[in-house]
């Protein structure tokens, strides 16, 4: 082989982590495509199912909470309100569930071939992101029909909210996929988490309901949840402009200092991602023998 530079002797398969995943984007893209293919292989609707599921979910909440519990009376443009939170929350729970099983599901590869194992949780997150696109389009169409128009604040809020959830989902995905390798019970725990998570955010109800019933400390804890912040940001991006009311700082429609809270949440998510990556990297050597 005509290699001019003699490569040095190194330990094989030094985990390059997410950076190596980023370098091997081509592999990542193929894994994502395989995952999408696997999910919809042989089904008549194919990717259409990613419209059906949120649609049914939406209808259930809309009729029960919106009509029967009369949320449509108190919240203007309630469908947009509901859906802007739901898009994010669904993406988040979906990523948690799929990435938790991502390493175990690729057992054959993990045991036999060296590749950066971060590929699997990352691919799970990206698959959920792809499936989120139709929902986002529907949300945008719905918001426009309700009177939404773009503004810097709206687009900025949307970007910040999305960034928080993407980073957070990836961080937890790395951690959960690791935990599930060592403790299989963890998969069950995540299923339960996915049940609880939608109710920990102001997706169906207004955050003011928490403010009215919780103590000051309780409210701060509630607002410290990055997902709550992200959902609020998405509502500020899509729902608030659609109600036709101008946004004023300190407006009780949203928690105070929402942008600052968003930036802090993003920083926390990035920190968690760094921790998740460090943990994943340390223990991934034991994956092959634990599976």
């Amino acid at each position, binding site marked *: *082989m005509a*290699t001019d530079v*003699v*490569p*040095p*002797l*190194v*330990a*094989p*398969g*030094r985990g390059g982590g997410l950076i190596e995943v980023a370098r*091997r984007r*081509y*592999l990542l893209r*193929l*894994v994502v*495509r*395989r995952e999408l*293919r*696997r999910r919809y*292989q*042989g089904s008549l609707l194919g990717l259409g199912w990613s419209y059906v599921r949120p649609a049914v979910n939406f209808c259930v909440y809309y009729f029960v909470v919106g009509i029967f519990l009369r949320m449509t009376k108190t919240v203007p443009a309630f469908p947009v309100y509901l859906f802007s939170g739901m898009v994010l929350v669904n993406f988040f729970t979906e990523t948690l569930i799929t990435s938790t099983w991502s390493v175990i599901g690729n057992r*054959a*590869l*993990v*045991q*036999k*071939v*060296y*590749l950066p194992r971060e590929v699997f949780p990352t691919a799970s997150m990206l698959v959920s992101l792809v499936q989120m696109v139709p929902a986002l389009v529907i949300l945008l169409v719905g918001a426009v029909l309700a009177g939404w128009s773009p503004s810097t604040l709206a687009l900025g809020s949307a970007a910040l909210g999305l960034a928080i959830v993407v980073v957070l989902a990836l961080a937890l995905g790395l951690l959960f996929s690791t935990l599930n390798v060592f403790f*299989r019970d963890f998969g069950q725990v995540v299923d339960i988490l996915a049940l609880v998570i939608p109710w920990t955010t102001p997706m169906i109800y207004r955050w003011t309901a928490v403010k009215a019933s919780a103590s000051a400390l309780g409210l701060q804890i509630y607002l410290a949840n990055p997902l709550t912040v992200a959902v609020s940001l998405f509502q500020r991006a899509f729902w608030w402009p659609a109600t036709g009311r101008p946004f004023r700082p300190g407006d009780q429609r949203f928690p105070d200092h929402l942008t600052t809270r968003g930036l802090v949440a993003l920083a926390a998510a990035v920190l968690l991602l760094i921790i998740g990556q460090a943990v994943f990297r340390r223990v991934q*050597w034991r994956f*092959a*023998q634990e599976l």
Partner: protein
Amino acid sequence: MEAVVVESVSKRFTLRHAHSIKEMTVRAARRQSLAERFTALDDVSFTIEQGDAVALMGLNGSGKSTLLKLISGVMRPDSGSVRVRGTVAGLIEVGAGLHPDLTGRENIYLNAAILGMSRRGTERAFDSIVDFAEIERFLDTQVKFYSSGMFMRLGFSIAVHTDPDVFLIDEALAVGDAPFQKKCLARIREHHAAGRTLVIVAHDTGTLERLCGRGLVLRQGRLVFDGNIYDAVDLMVPPADDQERARRERARREARSDEAVRTGGANPTAR
């Protein structure tokens, strides 16, 4: 120049007997151990020079596959160090990366990427991979409809078209029918001739003698022999009597002269 350096490597596994809380309580009540330590590799050291072809031999459970996994980077040793020069890939469990729901074509791209090939590299090798696997007609069929032979051939074909510096081969030579095996051997020889380092695990001593110059014998995780391939084979499978010994030596002499003829004149394409 060394291609693989293994220095006093040990690897232990923990076999857990109990997984659920119930099992753990029962075993604890009976004073049975919850887990057992098992030494797969014990202070193994050796160096492989670039361009060498080395056979790893030993009975089942002697640690061969564990050693290959350490070299490929799938696992890490508990103590000692493994270092490799350049890229490693291998025919370890051929077909591990094939996905039944994807077509042959899609699998070629995916599996090649998993084994570290770039898109351009795959495109360049694509026709050759298809040719080698003999699956032209089924290229756009989902792999789950393949016969087991086609499946293995496809996996093998992709793996032998990767371009690593160190090539690991684990029991994969038993793939397919006789003509295909012959083709595989030829392909592996080509890799060797191109200066790649080969580490081969197989039970078929005849194949190993033809491919490798050096043999390592593992016994219960310890390296008990490191030297000439013929001595390694004789250690693994001692000849029954003098007659058998003489027969082997004759066969080896013939094989060597065959080799000389083939690489000398009959096969000008050999690099």
